[in-house]
Structure formats: C-alpha cells, structure tokens
C-alpha cells in the first residue's frame, strides 16, 4: 500500500517537474524584447494638444502639475517640488517656443553659463542643420550666439515642437533609466550650461546622494512620429537650486536632436 502511494507520489512529482521544466523552458526561450522588430512596436498615438506660442505656458503648466504630484509621491519634499515646478515650467515653455531668452535668464539666475559642451554642440550641428548659415555670419558669432541661434531655429534640425500629450505625463526620481522604461532605446543630451560645482553634482546625483527628478510625456516633433521625452533636473543642496540636467528621447522611432 505504502509502495503504491510512493509510486503515485513519484508519478505526480515527475509530471509536476516536467510541467515546471516546460514553463521554465518557455520563459527562458521567449523572444528577447530587443529582438522584436521595430515595426512590431505599436506607434504612439498622435498627441492632441497643439503647441503654439499662445498655449505653450498652459501646456507646460498641465505637464508640471501632473508631474508635481508624482514627485511628492516619490519622496521629494513639498518645498523642493514647489521650486522645481517653477523651473520646470520655464524650461518647458522655452523648449516649446524656441525661446532662448527666458531660458538664459533662468540659467543666469542660477549662475550657470554656457560651457565647453555648447561649443562642441555648435561645432557638431554646423555640419548638420546649420550648413546654410553663411560662413562669415557663423564665424563671427560667439559660442553663446551660435547656441542661441540653434535654440531659436529648432526647425532646421527638425526638432520643432508640434504637439504634446500632457495627460500622459509621468514623473519620478532617480538618475537611472531602465531599458524597459526607455522603450528599448534611448538618445539623450546633457545641459550645455555649466553650473557651480557641476562635476561634483553629477557624481553625487549618479550615486543617489542628492535629489534627481524627471518628467516624461509624449511629444510629436515636426515631421516625425510621436516619441516620449524625459526631462531631468538635479538639486544642489549647497546652491539650494534645481538645475536642468538632461533631456532624453525614448523608443526606436525617428528622434530629433535636442538641445538643453
């Protein structure tokens, strides 16, 4: 009797282990996400909110209000969230409207100035979107003038903002972006502005020693499919300031080269 019971138990265990092995095999041999063709990734719907100079401020406010609640949920203090809301809104409006003046004023209030990265970007984009600017005109421009020219002529890079979807804003904290979050692919650029203690702040931000906050939402840029962008800020406890850190475009769709 006991032998029969043991045999039944052994058979049941063998079936169970076979099933487990089958499930494990299926799990570990499923197609890797990165192997899926880009055509299999559903395109994002076209955002409904059209970006115009008149509406940019309202749109930015909608994004930032949605982000603020999520920042508070991510343990960023209400005081820091309040300060970040102001900076984030100015930054977004400046990006949407190609308004460099407002952005420069924001950065000047933080003692941030255009640095080596701005010179590198100006040199880089001279060979792409800005070939048609007459040589003498370009050559006589300072780095700041070149950067301003590129910022205010985003269409030349096919980086003009057409539409956004503020309702789909997500926000969070932390330096790192996972592959899953990035929709399998990420492209980004750091701020071209050099602010006090930049290198140390970057190192501490990456280590998670100081607050880092981001907001993300769908954007359709001129002549391109909808993509997600993530805008990240870092807080300096010494300077008691938030600083724009970087902007990233997520997903495998055609992406615009952004400035920040």
């Amino acid at each position, binding site marked *: 009797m006991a032998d029969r019971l043991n045999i039944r138990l052994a058979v049941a265990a063998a079936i169970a282990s076979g099933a487990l092995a089958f499930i494990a095999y299926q799990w570990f041999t499923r197609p890797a996400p990165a192997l899926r063709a880009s055509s299999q990734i559903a395109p994002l719907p076209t955002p409904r909110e059209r970006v115009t100079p008149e509406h940019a401020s309202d749109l930015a406010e909608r994004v930032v209000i949605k982000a603020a609640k999520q920042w508070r949920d991510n343990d960023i203090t209400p005081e820091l969230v309040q300060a970040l809301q102001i900076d984030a809104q100015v930054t977004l409006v400046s990006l949407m409207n190609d308004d460099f003046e407002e952005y420069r004023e924001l950065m000047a209030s933080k003692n941030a100035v255009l640095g080596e990265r701005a010179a590198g970007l100006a040199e*880089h984009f001279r060979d792409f979107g800005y070939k048609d600017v007459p040589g003498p005109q370009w050559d006589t421009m300072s780095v700041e003038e070149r950067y301003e020219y590129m910022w205010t002529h985003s269409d030349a890079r096919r980086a003009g903002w057409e539409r956004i979807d503020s309702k789909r804003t997500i926000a969070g904290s932390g330096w790192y972006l996972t592959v899953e979050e990035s929709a399998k692919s990420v*492209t980004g650029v750091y701020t071209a502005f050099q602010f006090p203690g930049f290198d140390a702040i970057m190192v501490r931000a990456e280590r998670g020693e100081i607050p880092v906050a981001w907001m993300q939402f769908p954007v359709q840029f001129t002549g391109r499919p909808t993509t997600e962008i993530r805008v990240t800020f870092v807080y300096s406890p010494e300077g008691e300031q938030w600083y724009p850190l970087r902007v990233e475009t997520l997903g495998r769709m055609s992406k615009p080269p952004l400035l920040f």
Partner: protein
Amino acid sequence: MKANRVGVAFMVLGLAMVAVAAGNAAITCEIWCGNPPVLLGSITCTDRTYCCQYGNCSTWQYAGTCCGQGQDCDTGVDDDGNPFANCVVNP
C-alpha cells in the same frame, strides 16, 4: 527509494533553473566623460542581450539600446546630427 530519486530530480531541476537564470543576469554598461569622470550614459541589458552604446564627450550626446545574439550593434550619428545605437540583423 523512488521518492529519493524524485527528490534528486527536483534538486537537479532547481540547479538547472538557477544556472539558466544566472546566464540571463543583467549587465550595466557605462560611458564616462571628463576629468574627474562623469557618467554620460548607462544602459542595463538583460535577457540574452548585450549593450550597444554611443557617446560623444565633446557634445555630451549619447544613445543606447540592447541587442540580441545574432544582431550587430550599429552606432553613429544620423542625417540630422542625432546619435543612434541600433541593432541590425547579422546576415
């Protein structure tokens, strides 16, 4: 006796699953710029994929993705001046 064999089979199965899982461990790849070095871009790849990254320390632009086995990593700058990191099928 038979029950012991089943126990051993379970143990072997468990070890095999651990081994398979270990083979799929995540790996984080990083690009550093500047002196002192600052992390420009990082990407974490899992699930039998490897890191495919591009970084430019003059412009601080970067791109990253994860490619599967049998795919090549193609990086560079596209016609708009935007960096890219794409996986292409290895013919």
